[in-house]
């Protein structure tokens, strides 16, 4: 099995985006206490998670912390865990927060991958989403990251925004591709109930595009990126080549263990999942007593592991390696589900190639249903 990944959740944002349901707070008052607590949390897991080959600092908005703070966090991790010398170390940044000096500093402290939360290059869309950066900042951030010497640059984009013209999206996508980023994540907007957008949707003020439009957007996104030479390797993820796929995210999809630190972070050790309180004060309070700030946990039954492996695997282009699936989950998909798999293959939703059950592009678009076979 691959080495585990480390995720660190930075629970701060300068402002909350209208669509975001991840935990964060806009006050930095508890930043120092958070750093302390995070250190203690790392101590707790030193023995159970000795080493990592990916680190992902996300949030929240990591870039609202000072360079010194981020360095403290990385050093803290390096001092307590074995970090592979070729580890993929990613930081998410907001285009409004970064400058060349800061980026160079990030590079110097060992960060080798930057993920930019660009989301769109359309001013109206950025406003609708409640982003605090504008198109100009997004574009200059991209240039700055490159100039700082990063070659592994990822970018997050959002499509399927209420009222968005298809061309608004394809323009944003083509512009993003013109920077030739190593990695692109194109997320269809999901409206969560407790967010400002969720509230507006419930009131009937905004409407998501219909399924036909969303399907068109999905297939067009795939077509445009692949034409530009990218690999559409997961429902929402695209890489310039195989090596540039997000190694950290891959762990979520293939049941590799990962440790999540920080409020609301999720962890998985191969059979058990647990998650921290989605509250900075609660997180700090527990760690002051050196108690793990775990809100709840679950141990996965075989059937649950199987279902997870199925739905996660079918989200990826490479699909599910049938022999591995059989060995790891004790279930022979090919013989147990022979009839439905051959029907799905006949209908062009899946294919079996090199011992793998892979979704076709059409199949990937309905991966949730594929997982229910």
């Amino acid at each position: 099995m691959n080495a585990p990944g480390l995720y660190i959740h930075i629970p701060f944002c300068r402002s909350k985006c209208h669509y975001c349901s991840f935990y964060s707070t806009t006050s930095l008052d508890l930043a120092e206490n958070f750093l302390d607590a995070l250190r203690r949390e790392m101590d707790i897991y030193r023995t159970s998670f000795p080493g990592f080959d990916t680190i992902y600092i996300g949030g929240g908005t990591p870039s609202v912390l000072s360079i010194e703070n981020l360095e403290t966090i990385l050093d803290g991790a390096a001092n307590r865990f074995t970090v592979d010398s070729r580890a993929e170390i990613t930081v998410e940044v907001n285009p409004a927060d970064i400058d060349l000096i800061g980026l160079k500093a990030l590079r110097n402290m060992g960060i080798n991958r930057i993920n930019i939360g660009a989301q769109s290059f359309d001013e109206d869309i950025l406003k609708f989403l409640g982003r605090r950066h504008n198109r100009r900042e997004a574009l200059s951030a991209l240039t700055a990251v490159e100039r700082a010497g990063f070659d592994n640059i990822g970018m997050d984009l959002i499509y399927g925004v209420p009222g968005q013209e298809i061309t608004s999206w394809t323009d944003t996508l083509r512009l993003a591709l013109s920077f030739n980023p190593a990695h692109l994540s194109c997320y269809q907007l999901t409206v969560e109930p407790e967010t400002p957008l969720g509230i507006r949707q419930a009131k009937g003020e905004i409407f998501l595009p219909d399924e036909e439009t969303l399907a068109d957007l999905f297939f067009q996104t795939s077509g445009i990126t692949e034409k530009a030479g990218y690999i559409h390797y997961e429902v929402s993820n695209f890489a310039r080549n195989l090596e540039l796929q997000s190694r950290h995210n891959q762990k979520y999809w293939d049941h590799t263990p990962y440790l999540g630190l920080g409020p609301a972070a999720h962890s998985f050790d191969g059979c058990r999942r647990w998650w921290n309180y989605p509250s900075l004060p609660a997180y700090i309070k527990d760690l002051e007593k050196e108690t793990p700030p775990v809100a709840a946990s679950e141990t996965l039954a075989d059937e649950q592991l199987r279902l997870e492996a199925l739905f996660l695997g079918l989200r990826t282009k490479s699909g599910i390696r049938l022999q591995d699936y059989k060995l790891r989950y004790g279930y022979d998909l090919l013989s147990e589900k022979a009839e439905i798999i051959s029907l799905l293959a006949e209908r062009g939703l899946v294919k079996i190639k090199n011992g793998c059950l892979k979704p076709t592009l059409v199949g990937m678009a309905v991966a949730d249903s594929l997982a229910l076979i």
Partner: protein
Amino acid sequence: MKNIRNFSIIAHIDHGKSTLADRLIQYTGVSDARTFKNQVLDNMEIERERGITIKSQAISLPYQGRDGKSYILNLIDTPGHVDFSYEVSRSLASCEGVLILIDAAQGVQAQTLANLYLAMEHDLEIIPVINKIDLPSADVNRVIEQIDRELGLDPDSHLKCSAKEGIGIENILETIVERVPSPRGDPEGPLAALIFDAHYDSFRGTVIHCRIFDGTVKSGNIIRFMYNSATYKVEEVGRFMLSPQKRGSLSAGDVGYIIAGVKTVSDVRTGDTITLDGRPCIQPLPGFREVKPMVFASIYPIASDDYQDLADSLEKYILNDASFVYEKDSSVALGQGFRCGFLGLLHLEIVQERLEREYDLSIILSVPSVRYRFTLKNGTTVKVDNPSHYPDPGSIAGSEEPYIRASMMLPERYLGSVMKLCMEKRGANSTLNYITPERVELTYEMPLAEVIFDFYDRFKSVTQGYGSFDYDLIDYRPSNLVLVDILVNKERVDALSQIVHRERARPRALQACERLKEEIPRQMFKIAIQGTIGSEIIARTTISAFRKDVTAKCYGGDITRKRKLLEKQKKGKKRMKMIGSVSIPQNAFLAVLKSDTD
């Protein structure tokens, strides 16, 4: 006997029959406030919900009259649907009088009349009671006028009450004593007791509900059912108070129960006469009819693992429903199940609902069918009530279907639309009779299959509830029958097969296809739904595939949330039936049966 009064209450739905019964019961002190549960007589959950009475019920009310004498008032409650009209007639045959209850705001309605005619047929003393006089919208004068003009009853004979508010209750009881004749009969004569219902008690076995016309019965007697000459030894007799109250004997005029070691209610025939084995009466009481199932359908468990549960539940269910019959059946698409016979579609719905509720089963019903008759080329005749037993079309020399005579009573203004409906349902040989200038009696001969399909609902709808309807089986008549199959993605769903008249085949098939299209959720691939006769496709619809359902993100490392969502969906899918690769929800099967209410 002089102090006994046997009566029933008849009313249009929602005119307050159960509430009035409750008040009478309360007033006479059979139940006190502490044990009182509203609508004592409608004691099945489903009866209370639908506001209809399914089984007959009886209760004896002790009443001290103004004349200072003690009376026993036996209230016999009756079912209120055409499927159970025979049961109603047996209950009314056990009475000497009826209260005809009319809502002061709504006035005379369809069932008021239909029930009135039934009461008249039995020569009962009729007491009109105007209920809900406390309502702001009550129009008592209008109702009094209707009693005169539409019911043809003496308008001065009416009583007024508000069952809800308990107003006028004593007056009703007193009027029952005064006006309902006391029963006649000879307590010393040979026993003649009319069975009007039976229920199953898990401790006592079958409890027979009966009205004694002549003679006396007591524990230790050997009784005989005149229908099949079966004999039983009486263990107990008594009256229905809120709970059964044991008595030494029941004599002419009494309404009560007999427990006699009868194993199941199916051994008891409603309308049969009980007599004493040692001293039988010369002839049975009039009006007995053997109730035969008219409508057949198969029941399957949604999950084939539940087959045994279904079998056990049916075994228990039938203890209490003598008109229900069943036997084993199996379907290629739906697996092991049971072929069942019902009195009509309402009866079928009731059985289905009770199995689901009281026995917590998820079931699927096949399309209901009547019993057809086929003459084969080799000269033999076969009866087929199950489409899967449809004979090889090449071997059929002739086919026949059962016909009924429908008797309908309706306001004249609906005549046109009812006749149109009857014609559409292949009705013929009509007769029309003006009872009053505003009210007509219409009869038609119609195929039973048309009547069970959706006739009753549509009749009620075109007459806005004012029409009453009853039917009798008359004979079998030659018909051009075909077998229509429904295919979902080329797989035949045998539970949806129907034997229909050739003219009906195309519309019926199209309707089934469209209903399925509405009810089957879109899936990952296109679903073709076809109706066929043999290899000929006569109807077709398509459910397009959905193109996108995958969510963008897995919420960082929060796989749990997404998995839980899928687990929920998976559970939902388990409640559907897989036909080939298509998941069909239970509702889709039911929708195909539903009537086409315009």
